[in-house]
């Protein structure tokens, strides 16, 4: 049972600053997912929490105690690595027991804990095997087991699912979530996969170039992305971005071809003529003929079974992606940019503009 707080954590490698002051508070039992493209600093942040990397400045606080200068072993954490890092010459039992053995725990207690963890993970019959003799999913479970037996205050996951095939990944994802709920251990989970992030996290930290672009629950991030980066990163296919300017009266946006789109939820602050970026998710693009409809020349059709993703281009050259229910075929598709689901961003700063 523990909480984690990061206070203005900064990290530079030489002249390159990779983390620009991260602030984060993780509540007891919460699973927070750090998500971002590669190179955004998410793994570095996790490694700083683990103590494998030293922050240039800032504080890491676990359960009210400043652990910034402590060794990894003394931080009461357990970590699951991307390639599992199971010692190849030790049996599954040996791998899970190693940390406890070093701590000087008694044999009987070690055995009890390893057995219990193996039971939870369903790897009881594998305890005598070597990692080499295990499948990817089993190795993943052993890596989890090694973390569980420690009974740590904090679980750290460094992209633990990225070495699994797609089907197993979905299965293990659900399993990790269930396990984390059941054990109630505070967890930090790093991934580059937005689906993983959305499904696993109580809250998400979307990172961009060493900054936390947004920290919020998954649905809030989806519905009210804080900036264009978050908006484009979360959601698949990615959100359509349409350049526009703020029209006189601040109540509508004007597209480059002169079309006016009225904001459904009220006027935005700013000066008339200010450049905007309008965001509209592909599933919110409505189809159908009408006075305000925009004909799209269809460039690519991706049938996904229950739905179809259509990539098209408007006469003005603007690329639009639409996600339609059911099948679709055809050369052109009339769409309407419905104002009800429109996201409005300041084109210069990329920040979201609320009414």
């Amino acid at each position, binding site marked *: 049972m523990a909480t984690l707080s990061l206070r203005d954590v900064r990290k530079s490698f030489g002249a390159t600053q990779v983390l620009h002051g991260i602030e984060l508070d993780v509540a007891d039992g919460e699973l927070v997912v750090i998500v971002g493209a590669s190179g955004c600093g998410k793994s570095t942040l996790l490694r700083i929490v*683990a*103590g*494998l990397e030293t922050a240039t400045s800032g504080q890491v606080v676990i359960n009210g105690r400043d652990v910034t200068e402590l*060794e*990894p*072993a*003394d931080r009461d*954490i*357990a*970590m699951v*690595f*991307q*390639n*599992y*890092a199971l*010692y*190849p*010459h030790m049996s599954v039992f040996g791998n899970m027991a*190693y*940390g406890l053995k*070093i*701590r000087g725990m008694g044999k009987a207690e070690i055995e009890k804990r390893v057995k219990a963890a193996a039971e939870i993970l369903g790897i009881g019959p594998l305890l005598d095997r070597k990692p*080499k003799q295990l499948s990817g999913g089993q190795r993943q479970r052993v890596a989890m087991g*090694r973390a569980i037996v420690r009974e740590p205050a904090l679980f750290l996951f460094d992209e633990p699912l990225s070495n699994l095939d797609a089907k197993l990944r979905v299965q293990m994802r659900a399993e990790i979530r269930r396990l984390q709920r059941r054990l109630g251990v505070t967890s930090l989970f790093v991934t580059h996969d937005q689906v993983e992030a959305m499904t696993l996290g109580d809250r998400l930290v979307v990172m961009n170039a060493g900054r936390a672009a947004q920290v919020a629950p998954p649905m809030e991030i989806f519905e009210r992305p804080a900036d264009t980066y978050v908006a484009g990163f979360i959601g698949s296919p990615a959100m359509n971005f349409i350049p526009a300017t703020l029209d006189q009266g601040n109540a509508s946006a004007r597209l480059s071809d002169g079309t006016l789109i009225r904001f459904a939820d009220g006027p935005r602050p700013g000066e008339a003529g200010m450049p905007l970026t309008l965001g509209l998710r592909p599933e919110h693009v409505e189809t159908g003929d009408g006075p305000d409809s925009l004909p799209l020349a269809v460039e690519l059709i991706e049938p996904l079974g229950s739905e179809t993703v259509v990539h098209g281009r408007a006469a003005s050259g603007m690329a639009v992606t639409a996600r339609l229910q059911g099948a679709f075929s055809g050369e052109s598709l009339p769409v309407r940019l419905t104002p009800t689901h429109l996201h409005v961003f300041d084109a210069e700063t990329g920040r979201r503009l609320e009414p």
Partner: protein
Amino acid sequence: MSSTTLPATARVPAVRDDALLRATRRRLLISRIIAHGALILGVLIVAFPIWMTLVGSTHDAATIGRGDVPLLPGLHATENYATAWNEGGGRTRTTPASIMLWNSLLMAVLIAVGKIAISILSAYAVVFFSFPGRMAAFWAIFITLMLPVEVRIIPTFQVIVDLNLGNTWAGLVIPLIASATATLLFRQFFLTIPDEFVEAAKIDGAGPLRFLKDVVLPLSLTNIAALFVILFIYGWNQYLWPLLIINDRSMETIVVGLSKMIGSGDSQNEWNTIMATAVLALLPPVLVVALMQRWFVRGLTETEK
């Protein structure tokens, strides 16, 4: 042109007198004969001197002394080997082979074990720790690779004699222990150990020595075995250094002793005893290679993590 398809279960009837098939078979046969011929010739060239030594060790001194070189074994094997083992050969009864073999064995094992121990530690330091001058240390080790023992033999001799280590095991073994080659090989191997192992061990709470003992050494076992074979033979074959540093005949190694058995030409050499001693000198390295072959090959080829 008409194309035909075969019925599903039909087999093509053999063409009688198929010239292409015959030519193909002949070509295969010829290439096989050439390959085997070359290999057999190679084996003969390598094996013949050893056969000569073996045969020579089974005749009496007179037969070889006459200048006849027999190609078939004689009847004096037991006495020749007994002489070599118990008394030594040559006109001035050198050290018995039993003692020299023991000396060589001790020297070779000490050198191999010492080299492995020291190079594992230095490679471990260079790979897993970051300290000022790390790369300088590595390059310093690496550069010594380019200096053969013979180049530094006079200063080394001076140092050992000044330390009063002449005619001692320490004086014989220690200068041969520092090994750039083994350090380099271990460094390359350690570099292939994923960083995650180091990090997992840190989180498990294993300190540097614990990590070395529990993870690095078990993973290096095959490499250690392979290196042991190479270094054992390297140690066994040492000639110049033992010749310089050891004057006490009871500490003589077999390679040195063997060459001392062969006189300068003013009298008859006891070739039969010399050859028997040579065969005895051959056995331990052969045994080490044969017994450790499986490990040896795995250590040099396998990169399984």
